[in-house]
């Protein structure tokens, strides 16, 4: 069907004297497209492509763009019965209340601290492991380790935290061992003061494998001749790493850093939500959980939406700032200048 439509579209715009079959023109479509083709013709030419895009665009419209519009609930005293349009408009009252709420600032502070700890402790690990793994000569062993480390990336947070509970929790393997050997037990899973390290460890366990794959890709792109000539010139292992390996990974490291900074306010929502009960909100409350608990559990939708909008705007600024910084460093970042 589509074939027919496409074929039929073409003759109208083909020079009448050409005997060439109409679709051949289509074949070299974009390159010489500078000669003006009217929109109607182009629409007909790309009809199938447009039809293919429509379902996804509808889904994005309903579940991504409608909610963006729905942020007006942040300026309302939202009532589910009246919906977005007929709820009471309260202007900036939600925000005034929010900015005067110490629980909100506490959640914000937690978010920043957790993000910083993750940046410092988590970020270098995949880089180091990738460099280490890259020196393993046996391809089989290397891909075996890679496969094993990458596996937890496919586990859900519920699963990861359940596993951590069984290993490190109060009734878990570690404390079992400590008890049997008459040592003091150490319930890491409910200890608030070490919680930031715990969640970083969980993030490393789950996601380091993904990072390793990404950085190994960067390593694979480094020209081995560089190492050879450096070695011939007398550069040792560490010198080669410092002057060849790390500069070779620079682009990828900066890209990952930009992604991390742009996502600085996303510090593992599900991870926090699941463990919030165990360690207590004073340690596990972040902006997302704040929005969830006040907005949905507490039925104060406008208030939660205000917290969410605050986070969304700051995140947007962070993304642009991180990209700006990447451009300054001469890298592409998420998008080109």
């Amino acid at each position, binding site marked *: 069907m589509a074939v027919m439509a496409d074929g039929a579209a073409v003759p109208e715009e083909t020079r009448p004297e050409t005997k060439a079959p109409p679709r051949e023109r289509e074949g070299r479509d974009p390159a010489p497209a500078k000669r003006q083709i009217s929109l109607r013709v182009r629409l007909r*030419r790309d009809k199938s492509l447009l039809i293919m895009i429509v379902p996804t665009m509808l889904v994005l419209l309903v579940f991504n763009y*409608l909610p963006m519009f*729905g942020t007006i609930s942040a300026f309302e005293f939202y009532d589910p019965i009246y919906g977005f349009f007929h709820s009471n408009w309260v202007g900036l009252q939600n925000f005034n209340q929010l900015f005067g709420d110490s629980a909100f600032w506490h959640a914000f502070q937690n978010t920043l601290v957790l993000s910083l700890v993750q940046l410092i402790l988590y970020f270098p690990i995949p880089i180091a492991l990738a460099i280490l793994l890259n020196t393993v000569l046996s391809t089989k062993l290397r891909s075996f380790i890679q496969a094993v480390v990458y596996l937890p990336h496919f586990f859900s947070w519920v699963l990861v935290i359940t596993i951590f509970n069984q290993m490190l929790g109060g009734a878990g393997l570690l404390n079992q061992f400590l008890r049997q050997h008459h040592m003091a037990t150490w319930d890491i899973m409910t200890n608030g003061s070490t919680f930031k390290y715990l969640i970083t460890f969980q993030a490393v366990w789950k996601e380091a494998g993904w990072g390793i794959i990404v950085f190994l890709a960067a390593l694979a792109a480094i020209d081995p001749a560089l190492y050879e000539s450096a070695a011939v010139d007398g550069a040792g292992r560490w010198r080669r790493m410092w002057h060849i390996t790390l500069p070779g990974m620079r682009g990828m490291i900066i890209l990952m850093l930009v992604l991390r900074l742009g996502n600085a306010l996303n510090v593992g929502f599900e991870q926090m939500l699941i463990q919030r009960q165990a360690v207590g909100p004073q340690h596990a409350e972040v902006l997302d959980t704040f929005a969830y608990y006040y907005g949905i559990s507490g039925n104060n939708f406008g208030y939660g939406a205000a917290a969410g909008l605050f986070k969304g705007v700051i995140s947007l600024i962070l993304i642009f700032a991180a990209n700006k910084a990447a451009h300054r460093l001469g890298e592409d970042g998420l998008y080109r200048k």
Partner: protein
Amino acid sequence: MSTLEPLLGRRSKPGAGTPRKRAKGRPVWEEPPSFIGQFGKGAVLTVVVLAVVLPLYAIILTSLSSEAAITRAGGSLVLVPDGLSLNAYHEIFANGVVTRAVVVSFMITAVGTGVSMALSILCAYGLSRARSVGHRFFLTMMIFTMFFSGGLIPGFLVVTQLHGYDQYWALILPSCISVFNILIMRGFYQATARDLVDAARIDGAGDWRILWSVVLPTTKAVTAVMTLFYAVGYWGSWFNTLLYMPFDNNKWPLSYVLYEYVNIGAKMPGLDQAGSGAAVQHQVAPPFAISMAVVVLTLLPILIVYPFLQKHFTKGMLTGAIKG
């Protein structure tokens, strides 16, 4: 090398010709490794591998252990096989909640992955030809959703206004599109040999035919990887259930059952009728072996599919990551 290979039970082969053993593949110019360096490397990598393998091993073993074996091990995970039994699995499959959850999870995963893949493939191909009408606009519209979102609450409100509460579609549709995945697929489709596409076009193929007969068969690796990504996402999906279906335990998918009965430790309905003495004693939470069996059920599909798809990852992910 030499310290690592014994770990896997393999012999190190002596290097060709050289009096000192030179590991295969080590370039001639590279200095021979120090013992400490090799040992450290082996130790780090062993720890890393064990950190993943050990918990999985212990959990699977525990789920297969008898109550007595678990008690002998101190009530926690079992590390040494000591009395195996399939009781835990018998009980959870006799128990309606878990069986139903497994079915629900499979359905959600199958339907969701189907929807996601269909939409993503079509959209990725639809955007893959430069200079098609509206191509920039739609691309920008998609990418913008990666940078800014309305947030949790407005999304929830939209779905509930559409009467999605307690509906299965609410667990699938709101998160069925990953723009990132589509962009990766689009990159692959653009890299499909132009000659092939042009030849098909000359032969009279339209876009639907080209997508089906030329592009898809040449990009099987990325299709496999993306299918897995989506499927794993749906299989582990938990948050949407918390948002839209938190009360009706007859409808829960497996990940939510895991959360409620294993993580929180709520009492699993129907277990005490299952006739096991152990189950009656534990009125608060399901017996340990049963909990671990639920964990294993959530793990198992991933463990089964993983080896088959693993070879595609590096290819699919690498390119994806670089193009990202």
